[in-house]
Each structure stands twice: as C-alpha cells, then as structure tokens.
C-alpha cells in the first residue's frame, strides 16, 4: 500500500507535484497516467526517497521508504532502466543489489531466468538495448520479492512480445495480492492492464477512480445528424431540446445531440418529416476522454496555431 498525502514538490517557482493525495491499494494494478512532464516520475522518486518532498508525505506500508529496514524486500521499483554503470555485467549488477539488502545470491540467477536474460547475464549493461535494460530493471524490481511494486513506463522500448509479457506480469503480480503502480502516458496501455486509474496533469490530481467508473464518467457519447435544410435543422433541434436532449449546431448542415439514444433521434426526425442525410451514434474513446481531461494540463503542449487548426 502506497499512501500520498498532500505531496508537493517545487523547484524554485515551478510546482512539479501539486498537493497530491491518493492511495494505491494492494491486489490491484493502479495505472498512473499523465502527459509527459505531468510529475509522474517525480512522484515515484519521492516515494523512494530519492527526491525530498517540499511538503506532504509519501509512505509505503505507513512508513517513509528510508525507514524500511530492507527496502528492496518491501518495495521493488523500475524507474530509470539506464541508471546503471555501463561497464558492470547484468549479473554483477543484480548481485550487488541483492547483497545490499541481504537477499540470497541465488535469487540473481532465478530472476535473470524469469526475465529471459540468462544468456546475457555476463554482458556489460552498456551494450544492452533499451528493451534488455527494461527487462533487467524488472528483474531488479522483483529481486527482493516485494509486496509493493512501482514501474515507470515499463513497456518503453520493448518488442511486442515483451509488451505482452509485461502486461501479464502486472496482472499476475496484482493477482498475488501485491500493490502495483504502473505509470504511462498512453491511455490505451492502461485500458489493457489497470484496474484503477490515477490521472495527473501539471502535477495535480485530475481523476482517481476504478477504470469502469472512469470510462462511464468520461466517455461521452453523442448522435450526429446531418440535414441539408436549415429550416429543418432548427425545427428538429427545438423538438429534441423540448424532449430533454442537449443539442449543438457546430457546423453547417449538422446537429450534435447528447443525452438521447439514436433511435429516439431518428423517430423524432421521422415524426417531423424532415429530410436527413446522415444519422450516426458516436462514442468518444477513452483516449479522447483522457485527452480532453488533460488538455488544459499538458506541460509541453503544441499550440493549436502551430498545428494549423
């Protein structure tokens, strides 16, 4: 269990993490989602005691990370897969890691096997691809058989096989009752692995909900109606509004109807005898919902003018 209470990190005048409060529960995969620069990595570094919070608390099992007696046996983390001495072999790197927390040496061989790096055990990590480094980092996270796991963008640089393997691994770790926090900037990835979503933007909490609830709350569906005649458009819009729908006229020849199923919109048009050129229900994807939610909170956003919109 990871507990954040009003966690805040400022660098000078810039607030990177802003008053974050949420819990990461055992037995579930919690997706930690936000655009690049939203403060995900900084938050994770504060949980591990690598960065000091400006204010607030980050606790693991009710205690600050630095107070855990054998931290690697309680919290496993993959933050930066390249934070290794490039001249040390994968095996020696894990061996030093194991010894730092009195983890038996034999775990090293077991973990290298589990992540598929047995063949590369004696290779220097400087020669590793990003994917191999990620696997080594995951081996390191699992080395102490910890109850709490954090992964920062774990599928970065992995081939499709590796991506599937990581998804399965996250699910099975949570099924074993462990606390799993996985960060990503991709909604699609989270949709496939997470039970719960924590969304942040510009360091602030935007959403914290089970994934079904997030989908229900954030994926807006609408019916798009195309009518060639301007008079017909007004008549239909008026009728639908009276029946309780929310109607917009975004462009010439089109109505966007919310809060009403497509069948009732069609029936209303038929009853009024107006001519239709199109009638289609559209469900906004979760990806869109996420983009809308974080649109105002994108740190390195491209301005609309630059996009030529």
């Amino acid at each position, binding site marked *: 269990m990871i507990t954040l209470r009003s966690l805040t990190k400022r660098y000078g005048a810039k607030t990177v993490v802003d008053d974050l409060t949420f819990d990461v529960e055992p037995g579930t995969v919690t997706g930690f989602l936000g655009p690049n620069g939203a403060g995900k990595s900084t938050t994770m570094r504060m949980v591990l005691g690598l960065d000091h919070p400006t204010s607030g608390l980050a606790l693991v099992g009710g205690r600050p990370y630095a107070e855990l007696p054998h931290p690697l046996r309680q919290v496993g983390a993959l933050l930066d897969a390249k*934070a290794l001495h490039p001249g040390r072999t994968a095996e020696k790197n894990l061996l030093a890691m194991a*010894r730092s927390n009195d983890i038996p040496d034999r775990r090293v061989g077991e973990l290298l096997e589990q992540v598929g790096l047995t063949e590369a055990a004696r290779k220097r990590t400087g020669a590793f691809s990003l994917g191999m480094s990620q696997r080594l980092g995951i081996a*390191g996270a699992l080395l102490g058989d910890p109850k709490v796991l954090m992964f920062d963008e774990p599928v970065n640089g992995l081939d499709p096989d590796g991506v599937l393997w990581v998804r399965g691994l996250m699910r099975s770790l949570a099924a074993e009752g462990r606390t799993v926090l996985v960060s990503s900037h991709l909604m699609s990835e989270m949709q496939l692995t997470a039970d719960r979503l924590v969304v942040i933007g510009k360091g602030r909490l935007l959403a914290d909900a089970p994934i079904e609830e997030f989908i229900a709350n954030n994926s807006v569906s609408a019916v798009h109606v195309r009518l060639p005649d301007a008079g017909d458009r007004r008549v239909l819009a008026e009728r639908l509004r009276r029946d309780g729908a929310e109607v917009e006229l975004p462009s010439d020849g089109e109505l966007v109807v919310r809060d009403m199923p497509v069948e009732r919109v069609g029936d209303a048009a038929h009853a009024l005898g107006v001519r239709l050129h199109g009638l289609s229900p559209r469900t906004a994807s979760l990806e869109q919902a996420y983009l809308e939610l974080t649109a105002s909170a994108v740190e390195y956003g491209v301005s609309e003018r630059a996009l030529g919109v």
Partner: protein
Amino acid sequence: MAATHAEWTKLWSVRSTWWCLGSAVVLMAGQAGLTAISESTDLPASRIAVDGVFYLVQFVVLALAALFVAGEYATGSIRSTLQWVPVRRRVLVAKCAVLAPTLFVLGVVLAALAIAVSVPLLNDRVPDTSIGEAVRTALAAGAYCALLGMFTVGVSVALRSVAGALTVTFLLLLVAPLLLGGMGLVAALDYLPGIAGVNVMLGEGEPSPLSGNPVPYNEFAGIGVLAGWVVAALAAGDAVLRRRDA
C-alpha cells in the same frame, strides 16, 4: 554491513578498478627501477618508495576513488545506489569501508615493491634501508593511501562530479603547496594533505624535499592532520548527500 558487501561487489565488478591497480603497480615498479639504476641517485630505497607514492601512486588513488564515488553521478547509478540503501550516510560509510582497506593494502604492497625493486639496483654510495625502516615506510604509505582515498570520497560526494573531484584534490595536493610556498607561508605547508602524507612516510626530523624543512611532527600527529582533512571532506559530502535530490 549489507551496504558494504554491495559496495565491495561493485568495486571489483568494473574494469576501471583493475586498470587503476594494474597501472599503479607498473608505474611504481618502473619509477623505482629507473631511479635506482640512475648513476646520480643518492636516495635510499625507502625514499624512492616515498617519491613514487607522492608523484605517481597518489594520483591512481584519486582516480580510483573519484571513479568509484563521483563516477556514479556520471552514469546515473547513484539513483540505484540510494534506492538500495536509502539511509544516505550508510552509503558514505560503506564506500569508505570498502576503499580504505583496499587502498591501505595497495599502499603497503607498492611501497614494499618499490623498495624490493630498488635495493638490489642501488650503488654503494647510497645508505642501506633497514628492514624496520622499510616496514615503517610501507605502513605509512598504506595509511596515506587509505586516508587520501577517504578524503576523495568526501570531495566526490560534495561535488558530484569526477572532473570536479579530481580538480579540487589535484589543486590541493600539488598547486596549494606552490602557492603557499610562494607566499612565504612555509610553516603552513606541513598541514596540507599532500605534504602531511609525505611527512608521515618520511618520519619525524627527516628533511622534507617538499617544504625544505625537517618534518615537525611524528607519524601519528601526521595521520591526525590527514584525518582532519578526511573528516572535513566527509562532513561536507554528508551534508550535500543528505540534502540534495538524487
């Protein structure tokens, strides 16, 4: 203890450690041999060993300690180190606990090597080095290397950069004596770390080739001077390590 075990594993699992130690052996043996066969030499074997430590071996010690500690900031592996051992002072202690005995053995072995190489090559004009003097010099060289290594650990953590750590220690060891000497502060020279190290190896009352004066204190006082530098550097390193984000 676990942190020290991990640092021990880290020290011996990178090639730079072996390169440093190997080059120290080659440099020391070469310097001692060449000095000893030179016709003009009037230095006893123990003095040849002291020169070898001051002009060659101590820079290997600096490089080894700076790479082992400040090098972690260059590779980013300091973040792994602090994740494994989040009590930061424990990391500092473990680095010292691994380097000090390693460098002590290095200093003893290299001083003994220099004496063993030069004794049979020296001409008749040069006074013999007694066994007792050889042992004393070797132990003093070991102590100096160990203390210089720990000093570099402190400077490395305080400056978080290999280049910075090497520059500062190099200035202190070689340039500071020239500056102070030029300003006429000869009495202060004996309290700089490099000169103090040579003084420990020479012994009380021996004329120092660096300051020109006889060594004003005995070995233990000299080790005390070096220990003062070590404590100051480690205190600075500890303050920075505790406060800064990794």
